[in-house]
């Protein structure tokens, strides 16, 4: 690792930032001028908070593979799984590497939600934003023999008796849970959300016919639909998907319910990462997103790759965080006060 040499620029930067702040000058440009180097040297760690095999882990490994193979980034990229604390261990590990050029954090939903549900200080606004560049849709599925044909009928069924419609999903506070909360809010009904130990266990409970409803990603749902084990009610994106397998699935919005929710992944640097390194990543990710192999691999899994560049990612993250906070508060899961 290169901690000792990474510490030096940071001290310079710190001094400058004090100076800059005192002078009331924007400090963004100042450290950049001090650096001759334009790219990090040595291996770069991509830190994720899931165990191997989790979606963000798989995505980052795939991204790292293509970035290295296509020589977009020549430094060896190593994906490390620093599990624990619902991503907070990974998050805090990167938070502690102030200004380090050789580490980035994979941004996934728990980076936003764990601080909210556990009442911890937020991380998303303290890390150096790099880019969000992978987006995923979600669909609602019901049992294939369910009498429910669309969202309206689902809401009608749920309205008959409170908590009579059972929904399987991952742990409390997960994406699945939040989607169930959105359905409750949009349909003004109460569902019976049963948290299982992760997505796989929830899917097993659904396939075993123990619950009526569940949230899946299209790549999980389509094989089930094809083999007659599930039926898709709605896609939760703001407009219909362009993929041929998905284009006939109506959005929830079309059906008159304002349920728009998705997944997003990206990268962020440790706090105080200099502008040159951010630029380095910005360029690399722009090339990655333009890479046909990368696009094809995502399309296979019904994911999209639209790049939100470093310059725009800050307000984007802010909006994402506020949406999650509002929803989790509705679900009674937020421990964080309204205003930071």
């Amino acid at each position, binding site marked *: *690792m290169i901690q*000792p040499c990474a510490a030096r620029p940071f001290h310079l930067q710190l001094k400058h930032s004090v100076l800059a702040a005192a002078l009331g000058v924007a400090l963004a440009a100042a450290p950049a001028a001090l650096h001759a180097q334009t790219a990090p040297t040595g291996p770069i*760690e991509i830190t994720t908070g899931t165990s191997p095999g989790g979606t963000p882990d798989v995505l980052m490994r795939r991204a790292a593979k293509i970035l290295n193979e296509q020589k977009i980034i020549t430094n060896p990229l*190593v994906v*490390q799984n620093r599990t624990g604390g619902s991503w907070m261990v990974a998050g805090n590990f990167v938070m502690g590497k102030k200004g380090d050029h050789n580490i980035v954090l994979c941004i996934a939903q728990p980076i936003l939600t764990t601080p909210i549900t556990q009442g911890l200080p937020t991380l998303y606004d303290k890390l150096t934003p790099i880019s969000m560049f992978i987006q995923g849709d979600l669909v609602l599925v019901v049992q294939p023999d369910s009498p429910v044909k669309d969202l309206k009928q689902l809401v009608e069924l749920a309205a008959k008796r409170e*908590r009579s419609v059972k929904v399987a999903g991952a742990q409390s506070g997960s994406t699945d849970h939040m989607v169930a909360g959105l359905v409750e809010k949009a349909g003004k009904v109460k569902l*019976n959300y049963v948290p299982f130990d992760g997505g796989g266990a929830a899917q097993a409970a659904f396939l075993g016919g123990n619950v009526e409803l569940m949230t899946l990603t299209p790549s999980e749902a389509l094989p089930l639909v094809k083999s007659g084990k599930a039926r898709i009610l709605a896609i939760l994106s703001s407009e219909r998907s362009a993929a041929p397998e998905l284009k006939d699935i109506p959005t929830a919005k079309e059906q008159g319910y304002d349920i728009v929710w998705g997944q997003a992944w990206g990268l962020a640097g440790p706090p105080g990462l200099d502008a040159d390194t951010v630029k380095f990543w910005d360029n690399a990710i722009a090339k990655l997103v333009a890479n046909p192999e990368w696009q094809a691999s995502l399309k296979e899994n019904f994911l999209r790759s639209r790049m939100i560049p470093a310059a725009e990612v800050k307000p984007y993250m802010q909006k994402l965080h506020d949406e999650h906070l509002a929803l989790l508060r509705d679900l009674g899961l937020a421990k964080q006060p309204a205003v930071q």
Partner: protein
Amino acid sequence: MRVTNFIVALALFSLSSGVLLGTWDLPYWADFAPGSAFAPFWVATVGIILALALFVATLADEGGEPHNFPDRRGIVRVIALMAGLWLMVLLIPLVGFISASTLFCLLLLLGIERRPLVPSLFATAVVMTLVYGVFIAWLGIALPTGPFGI
């Protein structure tokens, strides 16, 4: 054994009380199913019952079974080893995993076990080669590194 049993009963009792107090504010029941405090409550209750049972049984048992703990020298050696291990853990962030564990091996073999120097050095070298070769070089596990880069 009597004293040991009394200490076990006391420790279990205080642990159970700790569990009970630590989860007192959580909901015992939620809607259809038990809440967060349900399991801790019953685990703690069982713990307290078992602590009392052990206490009473030991009171009733007059058998003068000797305790299991080793003599003073044994205790000193066990504590020394444990202290060495904790010292190693504290040293890891400062000097790196390899250096800290090398120091620990030497401390254990030469300081506590008082083995001859050459075999001890050899054993340490073998262990470190194994750790470096398997964990760092082959599996690529990011063990903490020290100022020397390993």
